[in-house]
């Protein structure tokens, strides 16, 4: 229910006046009417001098009213149209934020629902966008915040892999468990989950009866995290597989 003037009325106002009104609506929080005005500007003056500013403002307005999909589609269009525009990092950042918000789950903060156990579709998109932002525009003002969020997301994604690995260990599907562990090490390095991933691989190799591989992996685990809960004075205690494993015998 856009409270502002209807599209027809707006269509006739000249570009400059319309742009002023939109920015002013944006600044004092009337986001939905700002959206209508910016949308009219974008469709009437696709090549006007404010074209780029309009699209950036439109993205921000969509973000404020919470329509994540529109933010992402406008941002993608902006990145495609103005790849080397100085403000393009803002578009990447907004696209990542929109995916981040879409991935959050209301009960997550209550820790009732552990989102790492659920479908991480949008969290994965956010991870990709923020990583691209950090990689291509390391000096961008948004890069710092993006890196923080990358770390959080990487942990969530890694935990998701380990949950699946744990299920496969219980299910005695040891090849699957080892591969899930390796996926964490390969895709989410430097997360706290790496040590647990190594532990899963050791247990998986033990299940497969490949003692040599198990010991090789255990050596790397001991080297990286000697105080891992499952390693007590050189002896590895698997969670589900019978028996224990030590480096020397």
């Amino acid at each position, binding site marked *: 229910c856009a409270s502002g003037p209807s599209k027809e009325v707006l*269509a006739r106002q000249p570009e400059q006046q319309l742009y002023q009104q939109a920015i002013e609506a944006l600044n004092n929080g009337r986001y939905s009417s700002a959206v209508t005005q910016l949308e009219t500007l974008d*469709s*009437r*003056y*696709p*090549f*006007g*001098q404010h074209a780029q500013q309009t699209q950036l403002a439109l993205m921000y307005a969509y973000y404020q009213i919470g329509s994540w999909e529109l933010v992402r589609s406008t941002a993608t269009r902006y990145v495609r149209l103005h790849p080397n525009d100085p403000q393009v990092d803002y578009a990447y950042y907004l696209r990542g934020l929109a995916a981040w918000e879409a991935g959050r*789950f209301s009960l997550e903060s209550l820790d*009732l*629902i552990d989102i790492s*156990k*659920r*479908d991480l*579709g949008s969290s994965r998109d956010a991870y990709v966008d923020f990583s691209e932002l950090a990689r291509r525009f390391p000096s961008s003002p948004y890069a710092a915040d993006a890196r923080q969020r990358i770390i959080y997301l990487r942990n969530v994604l890694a935990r*998701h892999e380990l*949950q*699946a690995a744990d*299920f*496969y260990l*219980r*299910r005695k*599907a040891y*090849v*699957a468990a*080892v*591969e*899930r562990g390796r*996926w964490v090490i390969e895709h989410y390095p430097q997360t706290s989950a790496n040590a647990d991933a190594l532990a899963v691989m050791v247990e998986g190799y033990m299940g497969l009866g490949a003692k040599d591989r198990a010991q090789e992996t255990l050596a790397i685990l001991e080297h990286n995290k000697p105080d891992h809960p499952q390693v007590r004075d050189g002896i590895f205690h698997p969670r589900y597989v019978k028996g224990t494993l030590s480096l020397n015998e």
Partner: protein
Amino acid sequence: APFDVANIRVEGLKRVSTGTVLNALPFSSHQRLDDAQLSQAGQALFRTGLFDDVNFVRDGNVLVVRVAERPVVARLEIKGNRQLSTEDLKKGLTQSGVSEGQVLQRSTLNEVQRELERLYQSQGRYNATIRTSLKSLPDNRVQVNIDINEGASARIRQINIVGNHAFSDDTLRKQFELADKPGWFFGMFSSDRYSRDAMTADLDRLRSFYLDRGYVNFNVTSTQVSISPDKADIYITVNVDEGQRYTLGNIGFAGKLGMSEEEARKLLTVSSGQVFNQAELQKSTEAMRLALGNAGYTFAKVDAVPTVHPSDDRVDITFNVDPGQRAYVRRVAFRGNTTTADEVLRREMVQLEGAPASSDNIRLSRERLQRLGFFSQVDVQTQPVPGEPDQLDVNYSVTEQPSGSISASVGFAQSEGIIYGASLSQSNFLGTGNRVDVGAQKSKYYTNLRFGFTNPYWTLDGISRGYDLYYRKTNYEDSDVSTYSSDAIGGGINFGYPISDLSRLNFGLGGEHLKVKAYNDSPAEIDQYIKDNGGDYNNYKLSLSWTRNNLNRGILPTSGNYQRASLEGTGPGSDAEYYKLRYRAQTLFELKPEWSLKFSTNLGYANGYGKTEQYPFFENFYSGGLGSVRGYTNSTLGQKTTKRNDGDDDTLGGNILVEGSAELIFPLPFIEDRRQLQTSLFLDAGNTFLTDCYSTGSVARTNECKTGVDMGELRYSVGVGLSWLTPVGPLTFSLAKPLHKKSGDDTQVFQFSLGQTF
């Protein structure tokens, strides 16, 4: 003539920015220019697609670039289109470059007009006329009007097949969708409207008809489509050359079989000597491909190569088999499970990660996910792993749907006063896959508490464990709701485990303390039973049940079948010793998409044993109402009690239950997502019976007591039912008309319930 350009000025710009024009020019000011460069600049400006006209004028040493901007389409008006929706038309127009906000090229406009005319002609509307016009708007914008006169589509007057000897015209014409007579129902469903795609489809049907009957060399030599001068009638002539009828010669295999030849032959549905039949050939190749898929050759390719011997009308078939490499599944991923946990899906997987791929297992896993009832839609896609061609990832995408009901209610019934109630029953509590039932009701006459919890995967192999507790306190002294009160407190524990892919066994053990009390206005039968058997019962309950579930969806299935047989009762030494044998089954056949036929039955036989001669009335089966015989008030079918002193009698129920129902599930036309809503026409039948009558002691019996199953006493009803999955819970409506109801039957045409699907 070449000249030095000191400055560049652009004229005629309305919306395009000067910057855009300047950086499109291949040169900048302060440069020596000749004609060649100027024409090049002209091309460059034209390539931007923004200008209709560009020319250069020299004004002293200033180069004036005079441009005429192409108008931008401000509005697109389409009128008169009925067959094709405006959206489709706009989408088509956008592809050919005409859409709101886009620059308009004159040429594309009449190209669009031709495109639309061709489109209508392929629908058989030969006299559709399309007129496009432009209305200019201020500052170089334009409104594009497209008005369409779709005209009518020509009717087919003749489909004439020439050259058919083996089959009569009628047999062949039955294969056609197109007809040369208007359809039934006043031509509403007429298929005598010509369209080219329908024609091609019909020719394919004709071809496969012949190929399925031995005519390997069948060929449509030519087809003529002619139209009457007034463009109203279409005449179709199909000239065919049937060729000879072939029988199958010897059948061989080639390539690496991946199984023994003898095993492969068992899969074939064709044998030498039979008439050549393409459909059977395809069935055989599909059977072989599936068998190879199950043996792990997911990428197997099988095709039947015929070699024709015209001399003796014989065709030899060689099955070329290429099993391809053993395929493995690297990773199994799930998308869309926003509330259900990953493990709840992963534990249903029959196809494991890091294991040989089997197309059967992948399909079976999808069916198991659908049977959970947590998802309205389950799709599966296999993606090859880049760089490792023999490995693939299996991706399941699901759409969550409400799987249970939550309700809190404050109700009021004049007979019972205010009823506070809250209940939660979720088969996928917080996405953990566990079943939770919690309910509490409080009213003037009763308080009712229940708690149930079941974990279907107590162990990874699918051994389930569940327990339930319940407490009931009733006091119906001077109400007319019930004629006796029964307080109970009890609980139990049960275990279940799979005994095959589809069936499970379940054992249950529980204890119960039951107190039954009659009132002065209780019917004689109840009064007398409590006098003879007492009102206090301490029972320990046992139950054994077998279930087989092959439904295609957990909730609102459309195909498959489900059976449950159970023996429940109280153990010997309980105060009331009785047993209940129950059998419940339903089977659905999908007639065609969205249409299914469903037959269901619910049978029960119960009796006392040991010291309980007369089966306790409070454990009787009841019939009538939703989930049973719709159209009759809930639990009112069966033996009536002796009239109470204030005049009306009650229903006793019976220790034998016979119920059955036949339903036709049909789609509602305007509903998009049919997974959440199911409508059906049904015929219900059922009733309860007694093996022996309850004694009324000294009181004279007012209702004649009939014993034994008497099919004549079955009550019937016919009607339409609707079941709708809402986030609050499944909503069920039914409009039923009881058939030849007998006197004393208590009927309800409209019945509605929230929280229980029938």
